[in-house]
């Protein structure tokens, strides 16, 4: 599905979204009014330029459009793998982007992320996973590393990993696993204006977002240890 098809489905009332390189930015109309649309396309590798481009636009929204909801479209294969990028502290620019998403939340902007293509590691951490809630399309690919590469690095037989992946959501790629573990709120069969508006309305009604992913992971039985560990630390 192309970006335009996704935008048309999510925002039938209209959208004005530009793509510069692989950075997506603009506005769209929903039943809840104008929302900001920000993100990446074509499995972008996130480097300083995209990170700072997104961060700057978030700051513009915070300064110029108080309270405007933000819809992040996530399609990233991870961070740029480059010595020049690391030389200038790429982790610092990704942290800056994450802080901007966090600031928007603190200033009362509802944010929803939708994984439309790939969502991998650092690229996913810096904005998709920083939104109030993260959703994924059914054919989204969410992962840290594919199982073949994981088998190579961990020196565990690929067949063994495939076998274990059938019973545990803890390590194998897939949006469904992230859903069970609480990091993805729901998987949408297709991009849908109704689902998006329900997500925005639900989040707006919930008020200032707290991080409920551990509780969700426990309730869905995909991540059973984290929430109790936190409770034990608070009680220690």
């Amino acid at each position: 599905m192309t970006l335009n098809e996704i935008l048309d489905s999510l925002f039938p009332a209209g959208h004005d979204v530009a793509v510069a390189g692989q950075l997506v930015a603009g506005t769209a109309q929903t039943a809840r009014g104008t929302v900001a649309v920000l993100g990446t396309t074509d499995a972008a590798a996130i480097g300083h330029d995209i990170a700072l481009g997104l961060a700057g636009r978030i700051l513009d929204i915070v300064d110029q459009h108080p309270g405007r909801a933000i819809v992040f479209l996530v399609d990233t294969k991870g961070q740029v793998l480059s010595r020049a990028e690391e030389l200038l502290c790429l982790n610092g620019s990704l942290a800056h982007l994450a802080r901007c998403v966090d600031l928007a939340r603190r200033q009362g902007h509802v944010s929803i992320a939708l994984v439309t293509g790939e969502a991998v590691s650092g690229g996913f951490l810096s904005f998709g996973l920083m939104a109030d809630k993260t959703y994924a399309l059914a054919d989204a690919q969410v992962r840290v590393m594919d199982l073949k590469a994981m088998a190579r690095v961990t020196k565990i037989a690929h067949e063994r990993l495939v076998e274990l992946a059938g019973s545990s959501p803890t390590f194998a790629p897939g949006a469904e696993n992230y859903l069970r573990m609480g990091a993805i709120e729901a998987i949408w069969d297709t991009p849908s204006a109704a689902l998006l508006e329900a997500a925005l309305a639900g989040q707006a009604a919930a008020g200032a977002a707290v991080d409920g992913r551990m509780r969700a992971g426990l309730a869905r039985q995909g991540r059973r240890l984290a929430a109790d560990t936190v409770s034990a630390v608070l009680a220690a």
Partner: protein
Amino acid sequence: MNAPVYTNLVLRHSYFEATARSRVAAVLDAGSFREFLPPEVAQPSPHLAILDIPGAFDDGVIIGSAALGGKPVLVIAQEGQFMGGAVGEIHGAKIVGLLRRAALEKPAAVLFMVDSGGVRLHEANAGLIAISEIMRAVLDTRAAGVPVLALVGGSCGAFGGMGIVSRLCSAIIMSEEGRLALSGPEVIETVAGVEEFDSKDRALVWRVTGGKHRYLTGDCAELVEDDAAGFRQGAIDLLAGWNEPVPSSAGLRAEQERLSRRRQRFAGMRDGLEVWAALGVPDPRQVSLIDRDSLVALKKGLPA
């Protein structure tokens, strides 16, 4: 006649090579550390057990309360010698719990001794999600007015998601031996080739990710000697008079400006030597040779 030098060698304990427990004991006030979820009451990761990998009762991270220069602090210390300090489900949740406790208790600071390659691949999804939760917890703790200091000087450095987490902290204290980046040099070499990044060229790795480079470019606040006393004093000095800023658009705009300007200023550079020359260091090749005090003095003398 040689006795003073010899004594000096014996007393110097490398932070880089130390275990997390000995770092905690040496950085904090003597005898002040109280561990939360000590090994006696904790469980090793079942996700490792299912892969027939020996676990650790602390899951590679020690958390607790302590005092630093008489002030109450909460402490996180990752153990680089267990699974490379990598973050799995329990490991990550211990950190999140400690940070949430700090937001409620409001100690003078959280000391976060980072020593980690990032996500533990054996628990890849749990680790990635945990790092995202740590990111938000660090920012929540800071927003509650509690400074979070990252101490980066362990053998595994601060890479992957833990590199991002470190840069979300109030400030970073590094030793020359510390390394801070996103992708590890080995990963870049494997994917992009040895011409892009030769991970076996240790001097190059340090010129791109090491403490002196990060200090010269302002990505870490303090450079300290590679021993616990250096990190301890660095943390005490930073916290004296520290005022944790309220999250604001103005603050992040200033950072946006700084990062954008330097992106242009150092465009196309691939080696710390080039960046240091552009910063006005008269003889960049000297940077890797001079000691910590000389480098701090050198940075003070650079053009603004």
